[in-house]
């Protein structure tokens, strides 16, 4: 049954932050087809992942609210990428609960099913389809039928073209639409990949170091873009650039050795003794 999120049942940021589910739902409907009536779009509880005895994630518990923009920080090897792998179905947790909305059990779904359900992911290293043009990259990523049969018969509708044009304008690649994506600069590829997430129209965006290799102006523009996306979408951003984190995040989670070390606003987190010890103070 599809139950859309209703404001009454949602957690309110001012009243409910820090309660049982420490996620800040902004009272925005998660959108069609996704049941997020408790205001939580992503639920991770007691996730454990180990590779050959090395514990990458230990009892990780984390909630992301609908419409929230969450930043994840932490030193190298803290388990940030592994956590994204668990959410997107690339890595199966040894145990623990991973839910998208109220109904999608992420531990049971394959990568493409999770993507179709509405989780988009940007890789750490920009990954685009290099042989295809910028426009074609967006065409493939666009939310539409993705079966073999659908692709054999696919023809872009005017509406879909408009949507791609709109995103091209948003990511400022309008002038390069017919260039092969392999010829773009590093920063442009980052934007193209972000654009590919946008046309996918996901409920939750996972962004792994989105501003790596960007110029200051590009970073600033990205911050602005993400702030405008929050509310309509939920975002989880893994980033090392503290300036960038400070400019976008309302809520920061610090990971350390596969566990949540601290959570709160950037100022709170930066004052936390343990955080200073393991990460910021270095």
């Amino acid at each position: 049954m599809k139950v859309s999120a209703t404001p009454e049942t949602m957690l309110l940021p001012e009243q409910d932050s820090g309660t049982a589910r420490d996620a800040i739902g902004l009272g925005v409907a998660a959108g069609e087809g996704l049941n997020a009536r408790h205001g939580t779009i992503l639920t991770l509880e007691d996730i454990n992942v180990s590779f050959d005895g090395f514990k990458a994630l230990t009892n990780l518990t984390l909630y992301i609210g609908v419409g929230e923009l969450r930043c994840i920080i932490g030193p190298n090897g803290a388990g940030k990428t592994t956590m994204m792998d668990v959410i997107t179905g690339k890595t199966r947790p040894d145990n623990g609960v991973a839910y998208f909305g109220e109904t999608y059990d992420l531990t049971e779904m394959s990568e493409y099913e999770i993507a179709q359900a509405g989780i988009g992911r940007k890789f750490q290293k920009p990954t685009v389809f290099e042989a295809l043009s910028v426009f074609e990259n967006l065409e493939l990523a666009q939310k539409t039928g993705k079966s073999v049969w659908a692709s054999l018969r696919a023809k872009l509708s005017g509406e879909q073209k408009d949507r791609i044009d709109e995103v091209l304008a948003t990511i400022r690649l309008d002038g390069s639409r017919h260039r092969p994506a392999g010829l773009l600069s590093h920063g442009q590829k980052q934007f193209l990949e972000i654009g590919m997430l946008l046309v996918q129209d996901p409920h939750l965006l996972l962004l792994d170091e989105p501003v790596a290799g960007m110029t200051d102006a590009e970073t600033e523009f990205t911050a602005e873009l993400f702030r405008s996306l929050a509310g309509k979408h939920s975002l989880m951003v893994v980033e090392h650039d503290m300036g960038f984190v400070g400019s976008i995040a309302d809520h920061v989670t610090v990971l350390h050795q596969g566990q949540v070390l601290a959570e709160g606003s950037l100022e709170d987190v930066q004052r936390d003794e343990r955080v200073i010890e393991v990460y910021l103070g270095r």
Partner: protein
Amino acid sequence: MNQPLTLTAAQKAGPALTSLALGVVLAILVAMPLLHLLPADNTFHVSAYTLTLVGKILCYAIVALALDLVWGYAGLLSLGHGLFFALGGYAMGMYLSRQAAGDGLPAFMSFLAWTELPWYWYGTSSFLWALCLVVLAPGLLAFVFGFFAFRSRIKGVYFSIMTQALTFAGMLLFFRNETGFGGNNGFTGFTRILGFEITAPATRAALFLATVALLAGSLLLGWRLARSKFGRVLTAVRDAENRLMFCGYDPRGYKLFIWTLSAVLCGLAGALYVPQVGIINPSEMAPTQSIEAAVWVALGGRGTLIGPLLGAGIVNGMKSWFTVAFPEYWLFFLGALFIVVTLFLPRGVVGLLKNKGEA
């Protein structure tokens, strides 16, 4: 400063030139079988030898095109396409053997003192059923193999090795007399096809024209696929399969579709090869045959549709000249050709032609 202008000019001239060249080649290919029908003393007469040779090369060109669809577009290097080709050929060979044997058993079965046909020979005296087998045998094998291979996410060199092992296993199986396909001699001594004498000029001409039609059809199909969104998804499978999965595509279905289609095209090519050449035996399944097909594609230029056709034509044309002129040096020459292409022509002959056009 002039370069962008010449560039666009070359690009505009490109498609026109290509279609002109294609048209000329097609006209020649259609004219050849008609000229074969002329009396032997006519100056324009095309000999049966030439017609058979070109017909054989055209069948190989279809294999090259089919291999390019999976390797050039989807990035799956198959070193076992000879198996699908041979299976199509054997299916046609079964029908031709039955035609040659009339009401009796095919000759090799009489040698083995068999008294009745094995069950899988049932219905092979019907041309229509033989055509079904031509499609079904390679198609089903490719589907089942692909289903398990892609489900287990086998790719890259492991996939290539498995396809190579598959064709080798097929060859060993067909070498056995007990398998019921004529052992190492295979099938030969065909006499009639659909009631027509197989060596008659008109039959040869018809078979040749059918091959040209299949090649043109495959090319058109490949062109349509490559220009569709399906073709772009295949390129994406080749270049960034992970990214594609996170875009919500299940690559397995795409790979399985193109893989099976490619195998069926090879089977059809094999079915046209056998009546023209007059023999099918397990050596068609030898690993080297499949590797040679990969050389055709690489030489011509993978990921283009015309490239593999050029590659198959150039290598096989040279082969038939070399093996007559300098028989002992052919393999050295083939090896050298492959090294030269790998080192200097990463995009194959087509890449070379494109660069010339743009310079």
